[in-house]
């Protein structure tokens, strides 16, 4: 979808501001997992047009709506990013999603940081960067 635009625009040099911009988009993307987790604890049912839908209560559905919103916003931001930066730079930055999600788990849901978690994430990150570095 964004391929044409990629060829038309001269690519911007990577600056600190550029990295922050791309990471902001990645944060929006990973925020979707926070919404998912929040929704998962809102069990119940809601009534829409006289029909009862079991599974989540209204709050749960609102979290899902917010999640869809995050992913939609991310899609728009991503199109802008690949227009402005080389794909390799964009994908390199996106790999860090796994680190952001880890941070959200620890910060918002009190999940434990275990040494093997950190080693595992480091290896996964290296793997993602390696796969992406050859994906153009």
């Amino acid at each position, binding site marked *: 979808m964004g391929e044409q635009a990629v060829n038309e625009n001269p690519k911007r040099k990577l600056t600190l501001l550029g990295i922050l911009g791309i990471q902001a988009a990645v944060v929006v993307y990973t925020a979707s997992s926070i919404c998912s987790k929040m929704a998962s604890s809102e069990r119940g049912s809601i009534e829409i047009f006289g029909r009862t839908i079991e599974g989540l209560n209204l709050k749960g559905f609102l979290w899902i709506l917010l999640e869809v919103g995050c992913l939609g916003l991310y899609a728009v931001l991503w199109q802008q990013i690949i227009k402005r930066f080389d794909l390799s730079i964009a994908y390199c930055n996106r790999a860090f999603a796994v680190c952001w999600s880890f941070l959200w788990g620890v910060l918002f849901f009190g999940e434990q940081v275990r040494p093997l978690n950190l080693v595992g994430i480091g290896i996964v990150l290296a793997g993602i960067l390696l*796969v992406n570095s050859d994906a153009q």
Partner: protein
Amino acid sequence: MHSEFTPWLLIFLVTATVASFAQMLLKKSAMEKHDSWIREYLNWKVIVGYGLMFSAMLLGVYGYARGVQVKSASVMESFGIVEVAVLSAIFFKEKLTRKKILGIALIIFGIIIFNLA
């Protein structure tokens, strides 16, 4: 400290797989010529693709409801990168280079190490 591994984590391998197949459909559609701008978005591949993505999202919520942690889910979903690389080689003849294969091995190894914690 007991292991944090739970079989429910495997749900996130399923969501990654569903999302990877969805990506294949979206890419297929993006490579085709469409009569109009609206057809680029309103064709069965895109609709099924996004439908699959949405289903994967809901399945993820179910996984979280079963107690999967956010930190673990995102690591499990990295398996999607492995699947996209392999499926792209199958469907789009994208080369599985030595670098990619090494990256794939690292991702799988990293997921295993992460879950040993």
